[in-house]
């Protein structure tokens, strides 16, 4: 009797779980983050020499199409808005399943987060688009509070209320339509103010324990999987971040500690906040807001980074290769989209 009940209960749960898993893609929001992750992680057959990881700073800061057009570097931007560093670690592991030994560029802005977990919506934008695997289970277990985990295993439970607002796009969504941007997406506003937070300080502040542990995990992964790692901090006015709850109080001082950790581990760290003059950035005109570059700032910064990568790493120029013929078209399309947006 008990065995029968247990067997039937398990069967019932498996059926419900299968239905939820099958319908979760339908209910998940069809935003660009979904399109780019599905393409970059699973659907595209392109090989990337450089993978760009991190938060919105990276998402809107480095344009793979510029790296391609100016230097022939094949790259993809996997960054998503508000992505905590622990999510970045598991997303990187997912990327490495398909792309072996690329140069990994990690945006370290989210090392400043002191909260144990990121904002649910931001974490969802990344993890909901990762296929089910042991890596996803570990990501959910470590990046999501206990009482929300079920909603990440079965995103339909989170988005079920969309039953009344599903559109044709939800049924026929084609992630390939956003691939041309290679994961990049920046705003077209002008911040209009100067950076008031920058200070050439020698002060050092601790990296919060959880984010430090994930920084060490990323460094450990680079040694274990034998890929070159570049830590990067993109231009930002820290004034609001320093005041924010759940964030370190002195970002500049924390990044000095990041530099020490990188040096100690033999990892490169490029703090672009210290190099805005070299890049030629006009903070008021090239930023979308206090924390994010706009498309004009992103072109300058991407160009600077491409040059840095070419000088410091052995990266092939793929522009004449037939396998990348489509990339020139994608560049044109991205320029057209930028012009339209701007």
């Amino acid at each position, binding site marked *: 009797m*008990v065995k029968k*009940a247990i067997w039937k209960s398990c069967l*019932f749960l498996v*059926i419900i779980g299968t239905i939820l898993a099958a319908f979760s893609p339908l209910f998940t929001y069809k935003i660009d983050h979904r399109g780019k992750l599905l393409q970059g992680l699973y659907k595209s057959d392109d090989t990337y020499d450089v993978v760009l990881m991190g938060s919105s700073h990276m998402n809107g800061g480095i344009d793979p199409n510029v790296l391609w057009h100016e230097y022939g570097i094949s790259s993809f931007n996997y960054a998503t808005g508000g992505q905590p560093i622990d999510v970045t670690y598991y997303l990187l592991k997912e990327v490495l399943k398909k792309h072996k030994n690329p140069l990994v560029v990690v945006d370290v802005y989210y090392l400043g987060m002191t909260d144990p977990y990121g904002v649910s919506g931001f974490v969802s934008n990344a993890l909901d688009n990762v296929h089910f695997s042991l890596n996803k289970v570990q990501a959910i277990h470590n990046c999501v509070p206990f*009482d929300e985990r079920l909603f990440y295993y079965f995103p339909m439970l989170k988005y079920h209320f969309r039953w*009344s607002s599903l559109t044709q796009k939800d049924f026929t969504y084609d992630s390939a339509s956003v691939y041309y941007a290679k994961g990049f997406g920046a705003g077209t506003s002008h911040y209009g103010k100067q950076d008031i937070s920058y200070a050439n300080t020698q002060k050092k502040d601790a990296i919060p324990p959880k984010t430090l542990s994930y920084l060490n995990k990323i460094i450990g992964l680079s040694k274990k999987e034998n890929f070159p790692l570049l830590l990067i901090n993109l231009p930002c006015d820290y004034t609001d971040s320093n005041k924010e709850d759940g964030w370190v109080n002195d970002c500049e001082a924390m990044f000095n500690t990041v530099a020490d950790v990188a040096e100690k581990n033999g990892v490169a760290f490029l703090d672009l906040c210290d190099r805005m003059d070299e890049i030629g950035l006009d903070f008021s005109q090239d930023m979308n807001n206090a924390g994010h570059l706009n498309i004009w700032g992103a072109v300058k910064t991407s160009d600077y980074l491409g040059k840095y990568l070419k000088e410091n790493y052995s990266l092939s120029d793929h522009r004449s290769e037939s396998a990348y013929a489509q990339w020139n078209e994608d560049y044109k399309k991205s320029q057209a989209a930028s012009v339209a947006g701007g």
Partner: protein
Amino acid sequence: MSFTSIQFLIFFPAVTILYFVIPQKARWAWLLAASYYFFMSWNPYYAILLAVSTVVTWTSGLLIGREDLRKRPNTVRRKKIWVALSVFVNIGILVVFKYLDFFCGLYAEILHIFGISAQAVQFDLLLPVGISFYTFQALSYTVDVYRGDIKPEKNLGKYALFVSFFPQLVAGPIEKSKDLLPQFDEVHTFDYDRARKGLLLMLWGYFQKTAVADRLATLVNTVYNSPQKYSGLEVAVATVFFAFQIYCDFAGYSNIAIGAAQVMGFRLTKNFDKPYFSKSIKEFWRRWHITLGAWFRDYLYIPLGGNRCSKWRHCLNLMIVFAVCGLWHGAAMTFVIWGLLHGVYQVIGLLTRPAKQRAEQKLGIRENSFPVRLYRAAATFVLVDFAWIFFRANSLWDATVLIGNLFRFNPAALWNGSLFSLGLAAPDFWAALLGIAAVTAADLLSRRRDLRQSLLNRGPVCRWAVYIAGTMVILIFGIYGPLQSPSQFIYFQF
């Protein structure tokens, strides 16, 4: 830990499986530990109050029992003292935690009427969930022992389990000791059919709560939180929606509680029996919150004299019982008015009954004819729903505004789309109406047959189709999850 939380969906199967695995001797202790854990998950300090009520009523039972054994000359007087002490302590705790601010405010207002200026003292004590439920259940034990309906329970642990049994701890059904206490000595083996029935009832409860009540709540909250903004049809729709919201919310909780207990082998008392099909207010109170109605009947109405007294005393008894019933629901004048309104309905029904019967006889109206039954059910619903305005309104002033606005006729709301701007867009509004229709249809069908048994008699394909479809309906149409705001069960606050 709410029944609709993920924690409960892990807690309940874990507690149930272990309940059947561990030896019979230890089962009550396991349930007691699980029940206190369940209760303490809201606030660990609540457990102190629960334990005090438990120890006081248990001790009173033992002392009353001892008086019976000794048979001394003034036994009855001594027994009454123990009952009075138990009532004093338990009602005292209830008053301090639930009514102190209300009574202080009332006192200040009365002084103000007489021209004396006084500032009401506010204590703002945190109201422990379910305090009114477990206090009434514990008090009934003291009175039952006094009346000789049950022998005193010697095992404090088992008695503590009676007061704290987790399925019905925070919102009932309020069980009588003679019904529930002996069940903790029964040997429960796992019964597959019983478990299926229990789980089906829980599934229905979850549907009522998450898919119907919480969806209706969105529109109700919009209108009732800004009463001056809405009129006529909007207020009427919100008030009808509230009638079904509170029914589905509370009956949903009761069904989950009864179903969960049934899976483990316990029989809890039915708490709702198609209340909106009642043909009189008197009948409504036999069908709505049945265990609370029974409590007031046995421990207040009958001791006051019930109906075995003069007509005027009978009317007074009814008004007292319903005033207290209103106050039991909440420390606010809105609840008292709601209770008194039900008292007035009953008194008017009582006083006009002879005239009504004479008129029916003269006009040749057959009491059992369908049109008469339909008219009576509709009239009863209108009266009950009107009273719900006071129950749901945030203040007496809001209630009067809503009633005033109810009669500002605005039929254009039917076609100008304003009904879809009250928090529920058109698809959700229709889903809400479908939910009401489903609950009403289930009530209607269950008058003639046991729906759960009918389903279980069907073949496996039909059964499994219903299990899976029912679960998916809850998962898709339910209000839950991090991106929606599910409501707390309404009766938790009482």
